[in-house]
């Protein structure tokens, strides 16, 4: 019986160091020195991913605050806005001024802020119908007969939703997505939820890329979605995308298992936020609390 596998050329125990390797220097170094252009950086030149495009890069006090402080501030602010009685219209003006002050401090352009606030529109559209549909005493406005409680409800929803959306848009514009996730983790959100969110962000671009290629493939064969008759095709695209995502999920899980994953992600090192950071972040809900209490007291 031969002592070593016959087809193996050279002494098996010795690590392979050909003369070419020794003289050529470290290829890794050569590659690194070639800079970002090496390896075809077409993709990296393509710009930031979907999730990162929300961040407006600036060096301001608001940007520098730790993400978990900002998250707590946002949550506190939104709760206080919701708690403010709807009759105290001036208090909502005050809340809006507070957000405007944050936007100025964070140097977020007003135009960009307004454009992003449009995401609210589909969600509050029904609020505009309330004055027409609600019961109760009616008043005439510009020849329309509107319900008074309906008007109050619509105002309540619109004002509070708009303030909440604006505050969220400001958070997204001043905080890196990655930091937001770490912030959620520090606030003791269940790790599984944070992991799911992290994977969503990581694969958002991969999935939108896949969707784009499927659309191009559809259109290259003469398809354009023009009406309900084409919804079947779009539904099948969605189905195919779901299956692809599911299969990718399986492959990712396999890759994780292969590197020793046993149900929990490694926890990165984190420095605690100082009292100063907390004080700055909580200034916003603090001011909102004053407004809310004043509104309740003067009711």
């Amino acid at each position, binding site marked *: 019986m031969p002592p070593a*596998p016959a087809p193996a050329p050279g002494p098996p125990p010795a690590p392979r160091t050909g003369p070419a390797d020794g003289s*050529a220097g470290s290829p890794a170094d050569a590659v690194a020195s070639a800079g970002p252009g090496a390896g075809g950086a077409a*993709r990296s030149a393509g710009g930031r991913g979907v999730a990162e495009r929300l961040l407006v890069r600036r060096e301001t006090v608001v940007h520098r605050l730790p993400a978990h402080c900002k998250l707590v501030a946002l949550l506190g602010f939104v709760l206080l806005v919701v708690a403010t009685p709807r009759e105290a219209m001036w208090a909502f003006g005050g809340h809006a001024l507070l957000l405007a002050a944050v936007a100025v401090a964070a140097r977020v352009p007003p135009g960009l802020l307004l454009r992003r606030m449009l995401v609210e529109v589909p969600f509050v559209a029904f609020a505009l119908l309330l004055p027409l549909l609600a019961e109760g005493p009616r008043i005439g406005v510009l020849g329309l007969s509107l319900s008074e409680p309906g008007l109050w409800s619509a105002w309540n929803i619109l004002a509070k939703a708009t303030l909440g959306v604006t505050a969220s848009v400001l958070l997204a514009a001043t905080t890196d997505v990655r930091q937001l996730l770490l912030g959620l983790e520090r606030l003791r959100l269940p790790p599984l939820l944070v992991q799911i969110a*992290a994977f969503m962000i990581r694969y958002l671009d991969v999935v939108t890329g896949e969707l784009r290629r499927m659309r191009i493939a559809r259109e290259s064969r003469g398809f354009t979605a023009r009406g309900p008759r084409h919804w079947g095709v779009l539904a099948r695209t969605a189905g195919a995308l779901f299956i692809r995502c599911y299969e990718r999920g399986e492959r990712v899980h396999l890759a994780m298992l292969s590197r*020793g994953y046993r149900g929990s992600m490694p926890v990165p090192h984190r420095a605690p936020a100082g009292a100063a950071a907390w004080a700055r972040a909580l200034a916003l809900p603090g001011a909102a609390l004053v407004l809310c209490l004043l509104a309740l007291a003067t009711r």
Partner: protein
Amino acid sequence: MRRREHVTAESGGAGVRDTPAGPPPSLEVRGLGYAYPDGHRALSGVHLTVARGERVALLGPNGAGKTTLVLHLNGILGGGEGGVRVAGLPVDREHIAEIRRRVGIVFQDPDDQLFMPTVAEDVAFGPANAGLRGDALQRRVAHALERVGMAAWADRPPHHLSFGQRRRVAVATVLAMEPEILVLDEPSANLDPAARRELAEILRSLELTVLMVTHDLPYALELCPRSVILSGGTIAADGPTAGLLADPELLRAHRLELPFGFDPSAVPPA
């Protein structure tokens, strides 16, 4: 020739184990068989021994069982006949954590492998699972990224990198676990010629045991002195890569083809 080498590879595996001196082979697959739950038989009687420091190409047509074999190497699949040893350690439930550290698999699509938000965190994932923390972890990550020439990209999200760069980072993610054997699934797939050459240079510089699963015969010839052909779930041939590629009948029998105009005898062997 095929038959003889098959037999020596088989008995060679046993021979190495019986020899008291020298390290055990990096990989030892003995009589491995596996059928999927639906009854499809993917592997039967696979014998393969890869000595320490050897670079071996695993060639075979689609559906030959290459991926199934790879998933047995770190215990993702198992429960069939035969067994696998990695540097002497059997692949079983009891040793699964250590086996997964020893066997570094680089999957075909780097987007499957790079799932963490930044390159550095992704490279840290494996060693952190193995219990490494703090400065030691940072050093391990930095070293692995240097070895593939990606240290400057440590804080970037993986989807900002080019495909070639992502493939290199994927190699770094397993190098960080200091594996006994590096298993690459179609390493040259979707790479442009420059990225392909850069990866070849990196792989040659690593001084690691490598098992490379590929259809890319010139790449196998360039990097691996020895090749095995897996076909129909068994090892059909095992020998020097140049010899196997010079046998057109053998290649044809297993649906392997050289690119147009490629002459393996005109290339200096790896």
